[in-house]
C-alpha cells in the first residue's frame, strides 16, 4: 500500500530543468532566459545583511527557547534566501500572509525580531498590528490562510488598487484541501496573489514524496496558472522571480505559484528531533548550497565587499541578537483579565460576566497584572 517515497527522481536537488538559478552554489552569476536581474553592489550587500541578521537572530531565538525563555521556536536556517529574496520583492503596499517560520519575511516587512518572538513567548497569539506592516499574523493551522489571502486579494482587486498579495505555504501544506480551494479561487477570479511555496523537503518527519510524486510547482498548471521552481537558496533568483510574479499579479494577470526549492537545515521546531527521520549526509549536502555562503563568495569575488565588511555585518547581527534577547527577557504576558478584551469588538454580556467572575475570584490586582 505504501508505494510512495521511491520515485520522483525529478525532485533530485541537482535537476536543473525548469529551475531558476541566478547565483550558483559556488557563488557565480548565471543567466536565465526568463529572469534577468540587474542588481547593484549595495542591493546585494543589503540582501546579505538581511540574511546574516535573520540567521543570527534565529540562532538566538533557538537558544532562548533552550533556556526556557520561549515556549517554542521554528528555525528558518537554510531558508534565508527564499525568505529574504521573496520578502525584499514585496512593495510596502503589498500584503503578505506568513506561516510560523517566516521570520525572514517578517524582517523584510519591518517587524522586529522581538515582535516575531512574542507569540513564541506566548505573551500573545499575534505579535504585531497587521495593518502597520501589511503583514498578517502567522497561521499555524497549516494551509488555512491561503484562501484568506485570496479573499484579501479579491478585495485589492475590488478596490482597483495596484498592489499584490503573497501567502507562504510549505511542501506539507500542499496536501491540504484549503490550498487547493485557494488555487481554484485565485485562478477563477484572477486574484492578484502569489503563492510562495517553500519546499524545504520536510513536513516535520515526512519527506516531500509523502505529499506528491511529482514536483510541486507543477500543481499550478492543473489549476490554470503558472508554477515555477526556483533555487530557493539563491537570493537573486528568489528576488527576481518573486518580483516578476508580484508584477504579474499587480497588472491583473493573476496568480503564480513559486516553488522555492530549499532545505530546512534545522529541526522542524525546537520540540523536534530530526535525527529520528533523516540522515546527516542529506543535511551535509545542503550545507554545500548554503545561501549565505554563496552570496558572500560572490560579494568577495566581485569585490563588492571585503572581509572587514563581512565581519562588520556579523557584529551588527550580534547586536540584533542581543537586542532580541533583552527584549524577550523583559517581555511579559498579558494580564489574566486581558483575555476577555478582544474576544469581540462590541460588548458581550457573557464575556462581561466572566470577566467579573475572574475579578471576584482572584482579585482585581492579580487579574490585572502581567504574567
Amino acid at each position: 500500500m505504501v508505494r510512495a517515497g521511491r520515485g520522483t527522481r525529478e525532485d533530485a536537488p541537482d535537476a536543473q530543468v525548469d529551475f531558476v538559478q541566478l547565483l550558483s552554489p559556488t557563488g557565480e552569476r548565471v543567466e536565465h532566459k526568463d529572469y534577468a536581474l540587474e542588481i547593484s553592489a549595495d542591493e546585494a550587500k543589503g540582501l546579505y545583511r538581511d540574511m546574516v541578521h535573520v540567521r543570527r537572530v534565529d540562532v538566538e531565538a533557538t537558544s532562548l527557547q533552550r533556556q526556557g525563555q520561549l515556549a517554542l521556536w521554528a528555525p528558518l536556517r537554510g531558508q534565508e534566501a527564499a525568505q529574504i529574496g521573496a520578502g525584499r520583492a514585496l512593495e510596502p503596499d503589498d500584503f503578505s500572509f506568513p506561516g510560523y517560520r517566516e521570520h525572514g519575511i517578517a524582517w523584510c516587512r519591518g517587524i522586529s525580531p522581538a515582535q516575531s518572538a512574542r507569540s513564541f513567548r506566548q505573551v500573545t497569539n499575534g505579535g504585531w498590528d497587521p495593518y502597520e506592516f501589511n503583514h498578517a499574523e502567522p497561521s499555524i493551522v497549516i494551509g488555512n490562510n491561503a484562501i484568506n489571502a485570496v479573499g484579501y486579494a479579491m478585495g485589492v482587486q475590488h478596490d482597483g488598487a495596484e498592489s499584490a498579495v503573497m501567502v507562504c505555504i510549505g511542501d506539507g501544506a500542499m496536501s491540504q484541501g484549503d490550498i487547493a480551494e485557494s488555487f481554484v479561487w485565485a485562478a477563477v477570479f484572477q486574484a492578484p496573489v502569489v503563492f510562495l511555496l517553500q519546499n524545504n523537503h520536510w513536513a516535520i518527519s515526512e519527506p516531500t514524496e509523502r505529499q506528491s510524486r511529482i514536483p510541486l510547482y507543477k500543481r499550478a498548471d492543473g489549476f490554470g496558472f503558472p508554477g515555477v521552481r526556483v533555487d530557493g537558496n539563491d537570493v537573486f533568483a528568489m528576488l527576481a522571480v518573486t518580483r516578476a510574479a508580484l508584477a504579474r499579479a499587480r497588472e491583473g494577470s493573476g496568480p503564480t505559484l513559486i516553488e522555492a526549492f530549499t532545505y530546512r537545515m534545522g529541526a522542524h521546531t525546537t520540540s523536534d528531533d530530526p535525527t529520528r527521520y533523516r540522515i546527516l549526509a542529506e543535511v551535509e549536502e545542503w550545507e554545500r548550497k548554503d545561501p549565505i555562503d554563496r552570496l558572500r563568495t560572490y560579494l568577495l569575488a566581485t569585490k563588492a565587499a571585503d572581509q572587514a565588511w563581512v565581519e562588520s555585518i556579523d557584529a551588527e547581527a550580534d547586536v540584533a541578537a542581543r537586542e532580541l534577547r533583552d527584549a524577550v527577557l523583559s517581555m511579559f504576558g498579558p494580564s489574566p483579565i486581558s483575555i476577555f478584551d478582544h474576544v469581540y469588538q462590541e460588548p458581550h454580556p457573557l464575556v462581561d460576566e466572566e470577566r467579573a467572575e475572574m475579578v471576584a475570584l482572584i482579585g482585581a490586582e492579580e487579574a490585572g497584572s502581567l504574567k
Partner: protein
Amino acid sequence: MTERTLAKAINEGLRKSMEDNPKVLLLGEDIGKLGGVFRVTDGLQKDFGELRVIDSPLGEAGIVGASVGLAMRGYRPISEIQFDGFVYPAFDQLVSQVAKQHARSEGAITMTLVVRIPFGGGIGAVEHHSESPEAYFAHTAGLRVVSPSTPNDGYWMIRQAIECADPVIFLEPKCRYWEKGEVDETAPPSSLFSAAVRRTGTDATLVSYGPSVKTCLAAATAAEGEGRSLEVIDLRSISPLDVATVVASVEKTGRLIVAHEAPVFGGIGAEIAARLTERCFYSLSAPPLRVGGYHTPYPPSRVEEDYLPNVDRLLDALDRAFEF
C-alpha cells in the same frame, strides 16, 4: 408596514444594507442569476452587479475563507451557505480564523462578516438539508449566532448583523421562509442580541428561537385551552444569550421548557437549562425540561414530524413539568 415573507424580508434587508454601504458584498453558490436556491438573494446581482454579488466556486471553506480575507481588507462580506449540512467543510475556517482573528491580533483585525445559513428541518428534504448546527457555533467563542423567526426580524436582524463589527452566524429557519408577516421599516424592534417575549403567561416559560418559536406559540394556544398560561420567549440571539429576559420570566412562572430542533444532547437547550437553574434555583418548581431532536442523525424526512419538537411533545413536557 407591508406584509412580506421571511425570505423576501431578508432579501430586502440585504438590499438596504447594500445600498447603504458599498463595502457590503455577497458571495455564495448560486446566489447570482438563480438568486439562491431559496431566492433570498433574488434580483440582487441584477441590481448590484457581479462584482458585489458573487457566484462562488463550489467550496464552503473557500466561501468563508475568502470572506475572512475580504473582511481583513475592509469589506463586509455576507456569505451564503446553501444548506446547513454543507457548512461543515467551512468549520475550520469558522473556528480557527473567523472566531479567533480578532483576539489573535489583539483587536487590530475585526472579522466584520456574516455567514447566512438556511437551517432546520420540516421541509421534507433529503439528507443534509435539515440540520441544526447552532450548538457548534454557540460553543465557539468569538462567534455570534442569531436566528430570526419573523419577517420583521428577518429584515432588521440581517441589517443589524451586517452592521455588527463581530462575525455573525445568521441562521434562517428555512421552513418559515414562505410565511408572511408585517415588516415595519421605520425602526428596528430591538437590539440584535435581545430576546423577545412573544406571548406573556404565568405558569411556565417556553424558550425557543428560529423555526420552533411558532411551534411554541401553537403549544401555548393549545395549553390555554387546558387552562395553562404560557409565556413564550423568542431568544433571537443564541450567542450571546439574553439571560436576563429568561430569568425574569422564569422567576415569574417557575417552570422552563426549552425547545429546539437540534438534538437535545449537548444542544444549546442544555446551556439554557443549566444557566437558568443556577440563576433561578429557588424560583423553579420543576427542573428545566428540554424538547428537541433525538440523539440520532436527522432522520428520513417522512418521519421528521416525530423527530422535531411539536405541539404534542411540548405539551407532554409541560405535563411533566407540572408533575414535579
